[in-house]
């Protein structure tokens, strides 16, 4: 299972710093929500499409494929507002939604997860109650365990099919959750055995020790 949306072929956009791309997204959102102008929404949407096309036709096609569910929803919504007598309003809201979805796809398709995580760690640094190292560790754990739990869910479904002619249903959720909770106990025991959870302070200490050669 692929747990990242990154586009495998490198484009010019892959080389743009993650913080620039992450900062651009809220700026465009604020402009779109604050202005309420149809021509501006159309212009920004056209610019976003050009941005995707500048990374290559295949890249744009892949983005369009990912955006298909929202495209269907936008088409239905525009038709609904058209019949309700407010076609321009439907168009403006649809263009705004499409622009933001395509821009966020541009970000996620061209930015490594690690780079985004690094920006997040930098952003949370001023807040003493958020431990960046633990947040990053939790993210890695989730990515890894989602894959493992999905596999275990498939195994439970296969075991069900081997014993019943009916489709596996909600009955496999209970053992699935028990398996997840058992895994949590095993992983936490292994973590404790390896010195516990990472933290920002322990990372700083390790870096200082490396610098001092101790």
């Amino acid at each position, binding site marked *: 299972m692929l747990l990242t*949306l990154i586009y495998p072929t490198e484009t010019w956009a892959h080389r743009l710093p993650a913080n620039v791309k992450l900062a651009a997204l809220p700026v465009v959102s604020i402009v779109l929500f604050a202005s309420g102008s149809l021509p501006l929404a159309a212009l920004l949407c056209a610019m976003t499409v050009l941005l995707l096309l500048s990374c290559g036709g295949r890249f744009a096609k892949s983005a369009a494929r990912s955006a298909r569910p929202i495209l269907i*929803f936008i088409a239905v919504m525009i038709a609904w507002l058209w019949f309700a007598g407010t076609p321009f309003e439907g168009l403006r809201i649809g263009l705004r939604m499409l622009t933001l979805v395509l*821009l966020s796809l541009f970000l996620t398709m061209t930015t490594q997860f690690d780079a985004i995580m690094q920006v997040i760690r930098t952003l949370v640094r001023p807040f003493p109650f958020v431990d960046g190292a633990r*947040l990053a560790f*939790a993210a890695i754990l*989730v990515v890894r365990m989602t894959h493992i739990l999905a596999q275990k869910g498939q195994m439970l479904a296969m075991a069900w099919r081997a014993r019943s002619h009916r489709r596996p249903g909600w009955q496999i959720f209970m053992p699935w959750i028990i398996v997840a909770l058992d895994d949590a106990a095993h992983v936490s025991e292994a*973590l404790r055995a390896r010195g516990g959870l990472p933290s920002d302070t322990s990372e700083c200490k390790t870096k200082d020790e490396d610098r001092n050669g101790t």
Partner: protein
Amino acid sequence: MEHRFVSIALFTALIAALGLVPSFQLMSGVPISMQSLGVMLAGTVLGAKRGAAAVLLLQVLVVIGLPLLAGGRGGPGILAGPSVGFFIGWLPAAYVTGLVVERWRARSLTLVAAVAALLGGIVVMYVFGIIGMAWALERSLPQAALLSLPFIPGDAVKCVLTGLITNAVARARPSYLMSRQ
């Protein structure tokens, strides 16, 4: 400490993995994904704070781009879509669900967890969902509420499942039910 931390991360992973379960369709044709069941269970099993933490972790990872939502969706575009309110509402939904299980110590855990899921996973989540939909589509609240109605029967089924599964977890692994410790 480690066990609580890992349980939160594992429940986040479980909610994500539930997004890979093929959604079933109601008679009205509305697809029902299993991820909101995971949100309700996060509250009933982990309790208010830890359940909310598991959901918050999922929300952060989705917003920064991991495709952890049903259908492989992810990225900040979620916040511009019509389901933004439901997505944000998962957090208070898990918290309220967990809070009810923690505070209401009636004998039947199945009933308590189902009612908790109903309050958190339907009442609270739909308040946020309807407000979010009204905001994203620039519609009135009653219009947005009307658009959300078809999803309620599926969520009601999930409340019953939450009650049954929580009770089964309590019987099989009582020490894992952090909401009752």
